[in-house]
């Protein structure tokens, strides 16, 4: 049985961004962290639209929801910096298609282009220690 990993820490700065059309949702959030100097962060709020949405499935495949526009109606996630010098966002959520029907799952990095706008609020996470 693996040990639980518990990280203690505190919240730091808060950033808000508007990310423009044709930028990727996941990579855009990673670049936002680089722009603001955040190394780790949690999503505090997000909404916007995608041209088409691509959500991962358990078998390593994906589902694609065609727009435009596919509305982001729920989003949660975090951004973590890795020991290899990279920044990695893991975002999960629910989207609504052009008929209002909903689909959910993890957003696949590189395959979720923003349609009109994406508004996101990130709160910086300052880890103190890993127990």
């Amino acid at each position, binding site marked *: 049985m693996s040990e639980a990993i518990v990280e203690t820490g505190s919240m730091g700065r808060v950033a*808000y961004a*508007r990310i423009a059309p044709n930028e990727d949702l996941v990579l855009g959030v990673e670049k936002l962290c680089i722009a603001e100097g955040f190394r780790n962060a949690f999503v505090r709020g997000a909404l916007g639209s995608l041209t088409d949405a691509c959500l991962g499935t358990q078998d390593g495949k994906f589902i694609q929801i065609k727009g435009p526009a596919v509305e982001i109606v729920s989003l949660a996630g975090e951004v973590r910096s890795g020991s290899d010098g990279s920044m990695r966002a893991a975002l999960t959520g629910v989207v609504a298609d052009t008929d209002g029907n909903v689909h959910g799952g993890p957003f696949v990095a590189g395959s979720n282009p923003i*349609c009109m706008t994406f508004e996101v609020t990130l709160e910086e996470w300052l880890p103190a220690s890993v127990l």
Partner: protein
Amino acid sequence: MAVMQTTSTTPLPRPRTLIHPGRFNPVRIQSLHARSARHVRLLLTPGRSLYQSLVEPLLALGIRNASTTILGGYFARLQYCVAPPDPTGQAVIAYTRPIDAGSTYMVFGNATLGLGMNGRPLVHCHAAIRTESGAVKGGHILTEASTVGPTPIPVLVTSLDEFELRQAYDPETNIPLLQPHKGDRHV
């Protein structure tokens, strides 16, 4: 150093790059940060509109810019719209006419509070909902046409105190959008 190569039998879809009607803005991420956020737990008042029940208590606290999470609850009535392609071509998409969802359960919502172009507070809200018919839907919520049901609905507010969110015309997409601005807090 070893070169790793991975292959997949299911290539990911090629993202589509859409051509918007206006001039391309080379700044793709407009962002600002504050030193810290204030957090508030708010209960939406039964019988009032989502707009009133969110904006008025926050203004009373001096909060004009915020990102909020609506933690689920019943609405006596709710209207929303979705965003199919704009048949006129003025923008890439256009919101549909309001869809009446009736007595609705909001599963989860996010709402951004900022300043509208008309000088009034603006609430931009997207949510997943269960409509009166039982269908689970999602879209852009019309906050002034949606009425909080009989039970107060909790909201977590993350206040943005050192800058403003202002609605401004965006030439590239040809629609008004919320954007962060450094400026006077009390205008």
